[in-house]
């Protein structure tokens, strides 16, 4: 399964919208299809599911042809799971019967896949309930379990959190992160939320006007300066790291990454735990010397590139710390005053970081 690869090429034209993509996606981990609404990410997902039929297209999943010029596999014959934006549970069936609906019709699935899904999403106590009586968050958890119960070879999720309020999102997030950690199943995840993107994705496809304008490893793609990425205030990078040590006196944890380490609030994670650290560009600043400052995370870094930002007064600066890349959002005046230039070394000050896992 780890060699599974997805080749997706679709061309489709509707009045006022055209989809034109040619992508190779990894066969493992979570691939985020990211973009503003109307960018074609949901249409792309529906084409992959066979819910939409692009007149020109080719789709190969793990060596199996799902669509080509000669061939078209209808949705119900594709070994996939699909989670819609609204939970879309069958209201005439109980939670249990909803979960069994796909299970009974799928050759690949087994009782154990259902039991695993029920356990993973913590819905064991809801089985006899009527879907109409569940909360929005519970409904979406059941819908995710229902999609997992058929043991799909590919899981497609269309903004599964978008219809939920903040509280419900927080309720579901841990389950999605568990899914990400524990299941060896490739996931295509449509989202327009930078938060979901940075917490869940391993691989990123940025969609704009029906085209994929960038695709690649999440950390690399986020640190690119040439992308008009719609992250805005949330522009920043993620760093894969491990907890190196815990300082119980100050309630801090040392996070080690390739090329350095930083201190973050201790969240009770044991040393050795893999974490994902999110560093926003607006929280990174540069100084000519190491200074006595309330900002404790300071380390030397080399300027790699300087690019335009969303505002004419601002610039995004890419800094290397060992093998790790950070983005810093600076004013252009600061760049001129400090004489920031490519190849020079500065002290990088990181005001705050977020541990995501």
């Amino acid at each position, binding site marked *: 399964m780890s060699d599974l690869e997805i080749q997706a090429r679709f061309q489709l034209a509707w009045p006022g919208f055209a989809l034109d993509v040619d992508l190779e996606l990894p066969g493992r981990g979570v691939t985020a299809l990211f973009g503003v609404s109307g960018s074609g990410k949901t249409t792309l997902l529906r084409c992959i599911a066979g*819910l939409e039929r692009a007149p020109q297209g080719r789709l190969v999943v793990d060596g199996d042809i799902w669509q080509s010029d000669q061939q078209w596999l209808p*949705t*119900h014959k594709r070994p*996939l799971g*699909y989670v819609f934006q609204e939970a879309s549970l*069958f209201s*005439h069936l109980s939670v249990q019967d909803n979960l069994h609906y*796909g299970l009974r*019709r799928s050759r690949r699935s087994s009782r154990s896949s259902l039991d695993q899904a029920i356990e993973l999403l913590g819905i064991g106590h809801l089985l006899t309930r009527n879907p109409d009586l569940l909360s929005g968050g519970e409904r979406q958890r059941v819908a995710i379990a229902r999609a997992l119960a058929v043991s799909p070879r590919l899981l497609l999720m269309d903004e599964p959190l978008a219809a939920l309020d903040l509280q419900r999102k927080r309720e579901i997030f841990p389950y999605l992160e568990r899914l990400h950690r524990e299941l060896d199943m490739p996931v295509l995840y449509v989202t327009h939320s930078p938060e979901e993107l940075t917490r869940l994705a391993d691989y990123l496809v940025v969609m704009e006007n029906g085209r994929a304008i960038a695709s690649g490893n999440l950390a690399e793609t986020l640190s690119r300066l040439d992308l008009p990425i719609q992250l805005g205030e949330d522009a920043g990078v993620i760093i894969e790291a491990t907890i190196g040590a815990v300082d119980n006196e100050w309630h801090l944890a040392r996070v080690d990454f390739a090329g350095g380490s930083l201190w973050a609030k201790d969240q009770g994670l044991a040393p050795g735990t893999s974490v994902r650290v999110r560093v926003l560009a607006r929280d990174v600043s540069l100084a000519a010397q190491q200074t006595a400052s309330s900002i404790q995370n300071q380390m030397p870094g080399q300027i790699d590139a300087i690019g335009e930002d969303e505002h004419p007064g601002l610039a995004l600066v890419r800094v290397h710390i060992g093998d790790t890349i950070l983005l810093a959002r600076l004013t252009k005046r600061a760049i001129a005053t400090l004489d920031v230039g490519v190849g020079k070394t500065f002290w990088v000050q990181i005001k705050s970081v977020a541990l995501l896992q």
Partner: protein
Amino acid sequence: MLTDGDLQALWLTVRLAAIVTFILLLIGTPIAWWLARTKCWWKGPIGAIVALPLVLPPSVLGFYLLLAMGPSGPVGQLTEALNIAPLAFTFWGLVLASVFYSLPFMVQPLQTAFEAIGERPLEVAATLRASPLDAFFTVAVPLAKPGFITASILTFAHTVGEFGVVLMIGGNIPGVTRVASVQIYDYVEALNYSQAHRLALVLLVFSFVVLLAIYAGRRFRPVRGV
């Protein structure tokens, strides 16, 4: 009290309405499904044809059907080719005419119910490995259940209330085509008002109960979303 003739007429009416409702469930469901989901331009003309009996005087419909069932009409020639007796002035002729006459009462509530379900539950079913036919029976039909109940009750009741078409097609043959509404007409013609009253009351109560069932059912049915 009701005479044997009245009971015979009532039984005939019920039998006719039940058979017509059954046949229309079989014919009307696919038509309603198609009308609810197609994007083809035929939807307009077909929808209009289905709705015709709502506005057409029953005598007009009956007249055309009578011609069709006659020796030179298409139905008449078909029955002759199949070597069966002509349908005009028979019970099965009445059934055929009533199927046309009550068609919109079956199709329209079903079409509305199917449209209300929308595309989503069927897409969900497809992603859960259900073929379109499977999804129709296990998702669309159960979700449209209130529509099926309403459509069946309306079709049954409307067939019971038929009069003009029956006179044109069926005539007035006791035990064969003389339904309750025609029986009442006969009583009134013969100035037998007391007998007419009894039978009319039966139909009045029946109609009220039917409508009560539909409206009360509508009121207390929980709102369901998918």
